[in-house]
């Protein structure tokens, strides 16, 4: 997927003015924030569970090569074929190769954000393979020719009316308005796609090293169909998704659905191990697992390594006041919200996403809910440090920061400068004691008044012994 995060500022303006989007986003709070809050308390030892989850992820990432090799050995022993892809283009080439090898004409796909990184659907269409998204949200987006705006709820930016219109237009059927009716219509359209597909494509939430399994966590049942009905199954995921044991997975599964959708457990947790054997009733005849690097391995051992703990629950974006107001598309790539503001520059190039690390108030709501305790604001701050080191900040900002730091280190001059400054700004505030404009701070005064200072500094008043 093309990275358009350079457009972030323009996108913010557009998204804030988009009434339909704002209406859709207004439901995030009740659906996800309150949803998580209602079930997360079921975990009596929540802090311990989060620490345990973080420890499991760290254990893998600290020794990633070992666990990946172990996974590959186990998966291969069960009859799966493991492929290693350095870039998204490599994934596309490998999948197209598998399709050609098995004479695949149509593929049914369940949700995979990694495939969005690769732009897999477009690449397969070019290779002559018809791809059908079968996750309801992703199917809607495929019809609308849009990208997901959320990693768990990809179509969260659309309201029901938009989907009714879209189905009526694309399905050439009478317009439905009820959610149940719309779902039934989608099921009826999708059913033949499952039955006719030559290839199923899925993601994987976890790769279990001890069993060689790919594990998927879903709600709609399409994941089961996609991974068991077609004769070829291709699972695509990032190299960081490996977890040592099934026991470890259970710790992560206590947290993932609760953090993601406010569910104690999802409708389906599928553990997919190997290809169909002679004694099996169903399953794919060929099972390929493609592991994508795409820059992830460069984070191992770096000061940004904690980002690799991420289990893609989306809680950080659900709780982010910036995401809540602009939605996911503004971020310009596959991953939005706080985790995206870190991953996009790390995987796509720091220079290509100058705004993302800065568009945060560091409110910390993301880190407070992260199930694997990723210190997201700290990582964003480290990216800001890298930006400064690379000279990516505007000269005005760099200059003002330097002046402020110099003054703060020289208290006598600081005292004089602040005394002059507050008197000046106090005067500008006039009778109302409010400034409607402030040179150089239009970002503030375009939408807010600036309350005038009282006119004298605390330090001068205190020196004179004024007790107010």
């Amino acid at each position, binding site marked *: 997927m093309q990275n358009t995060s350079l457009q972030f500022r323009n996108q913010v*303006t557009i998204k804030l003015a988009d009434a339909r989007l704002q209406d859709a986003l207004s439901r995030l709070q009740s659906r996800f924030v309150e949803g998580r809050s209602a079930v997360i308390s079921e975990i009596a030892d929540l802090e311990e569970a989060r620490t345990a989850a973080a420890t499991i992820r760290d254990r893998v990432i600290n020794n990633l090569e070992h666990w990946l090799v172990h996974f590959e050995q186990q998966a291969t022993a069960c009859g799966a074929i493991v492929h290693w892809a350095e870039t998204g283009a490599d994934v596309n080439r490998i999948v197209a190769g598998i399709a050609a090898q098995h004479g695949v004409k149509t593929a049914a796909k369940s949700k995979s954000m990694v495939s969005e990184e690769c732009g897999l659907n477009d690449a397969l269409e070019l290779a002559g393979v018809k791809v059908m998204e079968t996750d309801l949200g992703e199917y809607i987006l495929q019809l609308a020719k849009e990208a997901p705006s959320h990693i768990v709820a990809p179509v969260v930016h659309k309201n029901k009316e938009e989907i009714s219109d879209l189905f009526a237009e694309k399905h050439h059927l009478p317009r439905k308005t009820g959610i149940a009716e719309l779902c039934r219509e989608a099921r009826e359209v999708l059913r033949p796609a499952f039955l006719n597909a030559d290839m199923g494509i899925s993601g994987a939430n976890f790769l279990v090293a001890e069993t060689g399994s790919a594990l998927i966590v879903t709600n709609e049942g399409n994941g089961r169909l996609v991974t068991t009905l077609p004769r070829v199954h291709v699972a695509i995921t990032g190299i960081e998704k490996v977890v040592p044991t099934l026991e470890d997975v259970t710790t992560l599964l206590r947290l993932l659905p609760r953090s993601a959708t406010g569910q104690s457990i999802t409708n389906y947790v599928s553990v997919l191990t190997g290809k169909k054997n002679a004694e099996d009733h169903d399953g794919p005849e060929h099972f390929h697992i493609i592991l994508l690097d795409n820059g992830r391995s460069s984070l191992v051992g770096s000061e940004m390594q904690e980002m690799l703990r991420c289990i893609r629950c989306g809680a950080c974006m659900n709780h982010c006041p910036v995401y809540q107001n602009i939605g996911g598309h503004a971020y310009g790539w596959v991953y939005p919200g706080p985790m995206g503001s870190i991953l996009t520059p790390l995987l796509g190039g720091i220079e290509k996403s100058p705004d993302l690390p800065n568009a945060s108030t560091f*409110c910390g709501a993301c880190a407070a809910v992260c199930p694997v305790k990723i210190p997201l604001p700290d990582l964003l701050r480290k990216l800001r440090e890298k*930006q400064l080191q690379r000279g990516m900040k505007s000269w005005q900002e760099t200059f003002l920061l330097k002046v402020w730091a110099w003054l703060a280190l020289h208290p006598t001059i600081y005292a004089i400068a602040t005394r002059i400054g507050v008197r000046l700004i106090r005067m500008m505030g006039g009778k109302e004691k*409010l400034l409607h404009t402030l040179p150089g701070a239009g970002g503030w005064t*375009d939408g807010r008044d600036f309350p005038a200072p009282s006119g004298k500094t605390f330090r001068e008043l205190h020196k004179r012994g004024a007790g107010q």
Partner: protein
Amino acid sequence: MRIGLFVTCLVDSMRPRIGFAAIKLLEAAGCKVVVPKLQTCCGQPGYNSGDRKSAEALALKFLAEFESFDYVVVPSGSCAGMIRVHYPSLFKDDPALLTRFTALGQRTCELTDFLANVAKPGKMPGNFQGTLTYHDSCSGLRELDVYKQPRALLTAMPGVTINEMVESTTCCGFGGTFSVKYGELSTRMADNKCQHIADTHADAIVGGDLGCLLNIEGRLRRNGDHATRVLHVAEVLSGLDEEA
């Protein structure tokens, strides 16, 4: 108890009354308050903009000025969090300084946290009459666990009624330089906060961080609300909430 008061650069320049309110509250609680004369800024603006070096220099300046006190008290969760949480992380590779910054951090408290959990004074000097709603500023809440403390102190005042707003713990959109760099986004976040404040019909919106309060006040006034008072919790508790 000998207290070093760090007034913060924002209170120093924008609303000195909050500094005097803090002194009044601490003295009423029986503390001896010292205000180191050369104090300036904790270094947070630079730190959060990626300028680690200037933050380290200001942290060392702070250490020299405040290390000798029994406690350091700060009328801001954001600056107290900088000292308590982030100063030690700046020096994590220097064992000697790390020990000193960790010890300093453990003795550094946000004002209401100090009053409620350490000083435990009796009656508050203030005599506020009316309803207020409390905004929980992010750093105080999430870095220092300040939530119950201001409410406990305020509800002990006979004339005070707290009408809680919804989402009191959601960011107001200030975020330091964020408020200027992403003004549109920041304003929208402030607007959401103002709506939640208006829904409570409170006489005053009260909080513990002046940055957030200036942001909220700026948006309220721009929206034409000149009636809702915007007060620092120290002003309400101390009674220094009226113009001198």
